[in-house]
């Protein structure tokens, strides 16, 4: 009987261990594959020059600029809206039907396939509002994608601020707004920033939305109304049209490094915060 238990236990343990190992191996394989194929192509010229020639030799500078531009702008658009909405939901709204509806809408928005969001961006921003294929259209459409992520993480971050810390503030004669703005939001800030970074990482890797809204033109955008091609779109075209596979892998590797950087900085922020508060 006891042996049986021990065997079941060992079996379960090895299944878990195997599943965990598979995850790590898969991730490692993907990274390694892209790394091996891409690293040979990456050098300063690849990062800092324009592509030229029929096979788009040369660098991907315009795509890097367009990618950072569109995600940065999307972040600027989304942060104030999402944070204010989350503060309202967590601190002010009477918890009831309306709040549940807003939360459900946010969760559903998060689940909308990005190609649908791209189609919407094309119809609404590019054509409807007449902004045209541009960084601005792309950023607006991307902000729809980021909004629910930032909103929900912010809401949870605010709720996670302990009640007795707020009470300390109220106990000193602080008003609700003073408590929210001087205690609750600053205390939640590291986790809010983490949410923003994760959403930004998601946006950097987004393809469908930007192909519909920013276009595919190789152009180094300066104004928000300029068009551009994101790194993901470039990667797609290089690979699918068989133009330049090594350049595609080089782009892929740079993209992965960027996203890894976002995720690592989010983790670093959380850790630092835990150390400071613990």
């Amino acid at each position, binding site marked *: 009987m006891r042996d049986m238990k021990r065997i079941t236990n060992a079996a379960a343990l090895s299944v878990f261990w195997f599943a965990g190992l598979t995850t790590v191996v898969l991730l490692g394989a993907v990274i390694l594959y892209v790394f091996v194929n891409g690293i040979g192509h990456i050098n300063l010229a690849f990062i800092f020059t324009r592509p030229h020639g029929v096979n788009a030799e040369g660098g991907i500078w315009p795509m890097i600029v367009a990618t950072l531009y569109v995600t940065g702008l999307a972040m600027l658009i989304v942060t104030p809206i999402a944070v204010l909405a989350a503060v309202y939901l967590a601190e002010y709204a009477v918890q009831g039907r309306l709040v549940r509806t807003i939360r459900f809408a946010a969760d559903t928005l998060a689940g909308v396939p990005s190609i649908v969001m791209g189609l919407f961006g094309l119809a609404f921003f590019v054509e409807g509002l007449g902004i045209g294929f541009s960084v601005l259209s792309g950023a607006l459409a991307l902000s729809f994608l980021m909004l629910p992520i930032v909103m929900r993480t912010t809401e949870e971050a605010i709720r996670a601020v*302990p009640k*007795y*810390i707020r*009470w*300390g*503030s*109220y*106990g*000193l*004669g*602080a*008003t609700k707004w*003073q408590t929210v703005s*001087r*205690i609750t939001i*600053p*205390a939640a800030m590291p986790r809010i920033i983490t949410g923003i970074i994760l959403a930004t990482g998601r946006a950097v890797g987004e393809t469908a939305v930007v192909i519909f809204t920013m276009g595919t033109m190789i152009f180094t955008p300066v104004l928000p109304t300029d068009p551009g091609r994101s790194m993901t779109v470039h990667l797609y075209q290089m690979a699918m049209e068989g133009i330049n596979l090594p350049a595609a892998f080089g782009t892929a590797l740079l993209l992965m490094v960027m996203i890894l950087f976002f995720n690592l900085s989010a983790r670093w922020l959380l850790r630092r915060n835990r150390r*400071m*508060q*613990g």
Partner: protein
Amino acid sequence: MNHTLAELQSGVAPAADPTVKIAVKGLDFFYGDFQALTDITCDIRDNAVTAFIGPSGCGKSTFLRCFNRMNDLIIGTKHAGLITLDGQDIYAPGVDPVDLRRRIGMIFQQPNPFPMSIYDNVAYGPRLHGMKKKADLDEVVETSLKRANVWKEVKDILGRGGLTLSGGQQQRLCIARVLAVQPDVLLMDEPCSAIDPTSVQKIEDLMAELKSSVTIIIVTHNMQQAARVSDETAFFLQEVMGEPAMLVEFGRTAEIFTSPKDKRTEDYITGRFG
């Protein structure tokens, strides 16, 4: 001089007695449908330490939170009866609970420094209420930390995070933070139950010094502490689960501990002294 129930209910206007800081008359308190307190009547003396004792769940914290209207923050609470501070009804329509809480500071069982520097923790209240000059703030921070018996330990690390201190130091930091807004009443809800003995000693010392200028109410489960620090003691009891708690006995601490009038008080105290 124990106040008998008859004395307490005789209806002497509380404002007429200048030694009374807070007067409570016939207070009932409800969390939704659950009544937590029934018909509490008592006078809290000015410039004295009053201890609230009684088993867990008998409404001591609830009662304490009535004085600074902290219960207003909990949805679904309501009360009946009268509480006056210096003769003024604190639940009167014109009273802003935010102003009231400046005058009635509160210390919680769990030390709750804000996630900011020691200096900013203490300066938080004065800044809220409009103090801006660095020199003024410096002075308030120093005086408050001194009054809270923690200055020596933190004077060289004022820029460090409040949460890096030990639990006992954090609690004294919280006391300094409250003193910085110069309250005339200090509510302490089991302030010593989560901290080290050295800090407990320091807090008991500072209470003795503060009481010439501040009226203190302390909830404690430690009978020795109640006997050491308080001038008057109130014993609360919830006799039946689900029924409201009441004030069983209230009087001079020396008398409550040596010759309680009520059998239930005696049983509780002797039980707790072991």
